[in-house]
């Protein structure tokens, strides 16, 4: 049976409605012009609209068959306010001949309800205020199956405010869990995950299998194959990437994404497959994997490098060290592999910070003695004998051992860097007087006294590091 799937303004004025039998409509309006419905073309057009809407928010999802969700959290201020954003959005669509009903609310459910069943074409719910606006909407506004919505209405529950007040357990029993979930999602009591459309990535390769695979060796082989496929394209266009994501799609629709990072852009399929190899064990193939995809991110221009003809002693970076750093960073985590880089700061703990492991870095001034081991937290010293204000300690106790100082050097006064923060925050008790001391056995320590000398106040001493 043929039915109307959509009607335009003139048809609606003539009393036609979507879902009406085509023959009934033709009887009402004899000169009715109908076109074949093309749901697939509609979906494509909606996707194109999603891609266009990225100018308003980076997170856009489709609400088939005819809607869009835009997550405008933290975006609206770019337009001034939510109202101005909506106005601009509608104006731009109207210029293209598209007329939208639009609603802004705290939850996707509430926004959908207001957009589809609200009184106005443009509704902006104040934060936390969706309950009042939803109250006089019909149950169908909850994105329920038509039968479920009809069932609720048949029982005399015509408005949402009647439902919102109902006890939850009997409501769920009567109308199903789905109805309760939709209600909670609209009211913000339950989370809702939207599938946002991701910007298309041109660096993408896909392999589909005739027979699903599940053996580890097969996974290793296909990861190499798909890497070959993508890297051939990268090579052709002189590109290299720093991040790769390999996704295994299971028969039951579950996806297992694995990611690796490279320290310098690369496109060697063997190396990429090797980095994925230890992670393949975490993939649960279930009943089998039917599709594997690989995407490259952070793609940069990478000119071809010629393998060297001379067998030099010094191995090239990309042969030895870079693969090692990649292996370690992928196995241990990126924050566990680093090269210290100098920072222009007098505060000792801030003068070196972890940097990228392959980035060339500068050295430090060797003439200011710094310890080999620096404690993250300076350890307080007990029983310190020292002549204040300026003398180094004569004796101190650290970890229950008494150290008698034989030689000392200092003080090196290091204050807080007042030019970095607010001037009011600078206090004299942040000043540290550092001494390099050597005990009777030759062990060398880096100790400091905190704060300026004040008569009557016991000085506080700390051990900040050990020289070898």
């Amino acid at each position, binding site marked *: 049976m043929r039915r109307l799937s959509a009607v335009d303004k003139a048809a609606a004025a003539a009393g036609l409605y979507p879902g009406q039998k085509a023959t009934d409509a033709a009887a009402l309006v004899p000169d009715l012009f109908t076109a074949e419905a093309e749901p697939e073309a509609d979906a494509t057009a909606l996707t194109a609209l999603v891609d266009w809407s990225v100018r308003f928010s980076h997170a856009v999802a489709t609400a088939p068959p005819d809607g869009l969700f835009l997550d405008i959290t933290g975006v609206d201020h770019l337009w001034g306010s939510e109202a101005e954003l909506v106005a601009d959005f509608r104006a731009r669509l109207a210029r293209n001949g598209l007329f939208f009903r639009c609603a802004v609310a705290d939850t996707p459910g509430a926004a959908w309800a207001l957009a589809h069943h609200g009184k106005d074409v443009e509704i902006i719910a104040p934060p936390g205020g969706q309950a009042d606006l939803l109250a006089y909407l019909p149950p169908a506004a909850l994105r329920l199956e038509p039968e479920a919505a009809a069932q609720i209405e048949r029982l005399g529950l015509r408005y949402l405010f009647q439902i919102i007040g109902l006890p939850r357990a009997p409501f769920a029993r009567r109308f199903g869990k789905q109805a309760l979930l939709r209600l909670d999602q609209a009211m913000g009591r339950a989370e809702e995950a939207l599938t946002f459309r991701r910007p298309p990535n041109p660096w993408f390769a896909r392999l589909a299998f005739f027979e699903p695979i599940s053996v580890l060796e097969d996974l290793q082989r296909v990861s190499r194959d798909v890497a070959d496929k993508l890297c051939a394209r990268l090579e052709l266009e002189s590109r290299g990437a720093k991040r790769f994501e390999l996704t295994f799609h299971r028969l039951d629709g579950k996806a297992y994404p694995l990611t690796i990072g490279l320290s310098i852009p690369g496109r060697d399929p063997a190396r990429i497959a090797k980095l994925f190899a230890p992670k393949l064990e975490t993939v649960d193939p279930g009943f089998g994997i039917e599709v594997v995809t690989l995407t490259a991110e952070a793609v940069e221009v990478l000119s071809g490098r010629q393998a060297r003809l001379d067998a030099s002693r*010094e*191995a*090239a*970076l990309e*042969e*030895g*060290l870079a*693969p*090692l*750093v990649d*292996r*370690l960073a992928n196995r*241990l985590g990126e924050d*566990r*592999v*680093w*090269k*210290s*880089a*100098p920072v222009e700061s007098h505060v*000792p703990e801030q*003068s*070196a910070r*972890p940097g990228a*492991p392959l980035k*060339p*870095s*500068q*050295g*430090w001034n*060797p*003439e*200011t*003695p*710094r*310890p*080999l*081991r*620096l*404690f*993250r937290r300076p350890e307080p010293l007990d029983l310190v004998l020292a002549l204040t204000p300026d003398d180094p300690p004569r004796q101190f106790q650290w*970890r229950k*051992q008494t150290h008698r100082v*034989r*030689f*000392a*050097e200092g003080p090196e006064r290091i204050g807080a860097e007042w030019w970095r923060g607010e001037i009011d925050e600078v206090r004299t008790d942040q000043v540290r007087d550092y001494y*390099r*001391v*050597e005990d*009777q*056995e*030759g*062990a*060398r320590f880096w100790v400091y006294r905190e704060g300026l000398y004040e008569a009557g106040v016991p000085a506080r001493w700390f051990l900040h*590091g*050990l*020289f*070898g």
Partner: protein
Amino acid sequence: MSGFREVRLAALKAKIAALEAGGRADSESLPFGDLRLDGCFLGQGLPLGQWHEFTGAGMEVETGASPAAFAALVAAPLARRGEAVWVLRRDDLFAPGLSGLGFPAERLIQVCARDEAEALAVAEDALATAGVTAVFAEVEAVDLTAGRRLQLACEKHGATGFVIRRRPYGGLGRQTASGSAAATRWKIAPTTSEPAPGEFGLGPPRWRVELERCRGGRPGAWLMEAQAAFTWEAQDGPHPLRLVAELGDRQLAPAQSVRLSA
């Protein structure tokens, strides 16, 4: 008859030496530049392409400052030649401190492992990488299997390993590995420095260095000094370590005599 035996013995010795060098005919060495020390080694210097073990004494068993400083100084010429990797279990190595001693810390890659097994695995991986000349590993102990694996990794590209034995803070003393596959074993203790006459403050850092075990060589004990520590010259001397005095027998050389010389 006896001549024949000698020839065969010499051939056998050469064969064993070749086996020990991992198939490579020339095993390199890194001389300290002082015959009193270099004479202890078979190749007139610290053998490269093998791994060495450094331990501390007293509180240094946990802090591992002196063994680390000494190992860094021994390896400084190597680190300038290629890449260096330092495997830690506790992230407290301060690069500016290494830099002051004369180690090219701006080239050092640091790796923090989660546990002992991971630290050894990372060290092994780094040793087997082309272009890496020195790998430092701060671990509690290296058992025979792990030691053998480190040795095989060293032989791959001729990298040299420096294992710094360090107990985690508050950890119980573990059974020390008895037979070790290390080429040499050193015990490092800090000792009182000697400022130059008229100078104020501390002298260059000094250590009592005991070579406890040395494969193919003989043990010894010395007083050594980082001659140019905390000066700009630290970066470019022939070898940053200077031998101050030989301590004849390490059992008989009491700490007292050292202090008298100070």
